[in-house]
């Protein structure tokens, strides 16, 4: 009986994780696609030295950061995967979303400051609840770069 209760709680958590996690992921991707199109004119590159036509631009640092939580379904899925090895596709989509969202936020910051482009873009990624041990983790991505703004003078 006790085993049955435990099993049903587990199933319920798994189902909740799957339904809400899947819904959140779909919504997030739709929003990413839409915003990537609207911000396509802010060119993001990783070149270190600006090309000569930007020589008189002002520059400032812009950054975008995002934290996305893992859901229970992904945790269990990854746990099973860790027994046999291979790609953890459940986490790959998470990283993809976090990276693109971080770039979008950086682009938005650049646009609000009237920038034309962002160069020297760098990424940092970490696991925020890395020390939580058994707890559910989340993924943090920070994107930062140098925004080049046309000089007003």
């Amino acid at each position, binding site marked *: 009986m006790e085993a049955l209760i435990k*099993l049903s709680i587990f199933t319920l958590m798994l189902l909740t994780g799957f339904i809400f996690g899947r819904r959140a992921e779909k919504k997030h991707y739709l929003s990413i696609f839409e915003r*990537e199109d609207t911000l*396509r004119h802010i060119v993001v*590159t990783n070149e270190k030295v600006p090309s000569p036509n930007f020589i008189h631009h002002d520059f400032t640092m812009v950054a975008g950061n995002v934290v996305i939580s893992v859901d229970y379904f992904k945790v*269990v899925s990854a746990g*099973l995967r860790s*027994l046999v090895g291979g790609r953890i*596709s459940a986490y790959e*989509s998470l*990283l993809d979303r976090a990276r693109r969202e971080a770039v979008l936020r950086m682009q938005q910051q650049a646009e609000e400051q009237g920038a034309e482009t962002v160069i020297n873009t760098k990424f940092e990624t970490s696991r925020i609840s890395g020390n939580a041990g058994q707890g559910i983790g989340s993924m943090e991505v920070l994107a930062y770069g140098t925004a080049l703004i046309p000089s007003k003078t």
Partner: protein
Amino acid sequence: MTRLNENPRIPEGINTTDEHPLKEFMLLFVGVALSLVVLVVILSVMAQQLAPYIPFRWEQKLTQFDGKLDPLLDKLSTGDGREARGKNNEDVKAEQLIEQNQQAQTALQALVERLATSMATPSDMRFQLHLLNEATPNAFATLGGHIFVTQGLVTAVSSENALAMVLAHEMAHVKFRHPIQAMSRGALLQLVIVAVSGDQGSVALNSVLGQTGLLTILSFNRDMERDSDSEAMAVLMQHYGHLMGADEFFSEVLSRDGDAGWQAAFETHPATQERIDTIVARIKLSQQDEIHAQKLTPMDASLLALTSRVDSK
């Protein structure tokens, strides 16, 4: 080298996969669960085959400390409380009860010894009976040949035959080395679960693995019960020459608690009705070629004293 004036549109599905997450999950889940079941079955069979080769002496040692019975087991049995000495009326009464219990335990032990002569047990196997001060009818066998019987069981049956059926059943467990098999298997499964799930520390995974193991154990124990029932009936047949009264305990418990109540207490046992049906079928079979009269053997006086004590309350 020209500079792009717009961020390029990078095709989807390079860093991610379009595959439905449930598909991957199911594949992994079924695969891991199946291989775990196979592993558990192999280990269980190994435990079942190899555990009987563990010397009975070792098994006895497991339940003993400094040559004495495990203090916990000792406390459970009615032998405890001997030091309760006093002068007033209640203490004298308590002392009488203890005396009664000890006589009953001796009588039960004697019955066990008698039954053991009809059971082909290894020479070094000893049965040690303990009477528990407990009203719920119950009996169980553990490591080292220790058999526990509650007072409730003694008072629930009316003939020695019914009592002997239960005792022989528990003795059969010991004879077939079921307790050590169960323990070996339990320990092995625990080891597997820790080894498989311990590293990634996922509590959830741990519980899934635990469930899989549990279900497998359950199905094995039913086989053990059936074997013990059948061995017990063979012993009764040899000792009393008939199987009359063998089903009494089960019928008694069933009529009082219903099937569900019984199963709650003994979840690993096969459905009581199924067991009664088997026993009754065997009784009928034995009656066909039995011409002389079959009599129930009355219980020992010291055991009847327990019953009358309950009745007078």
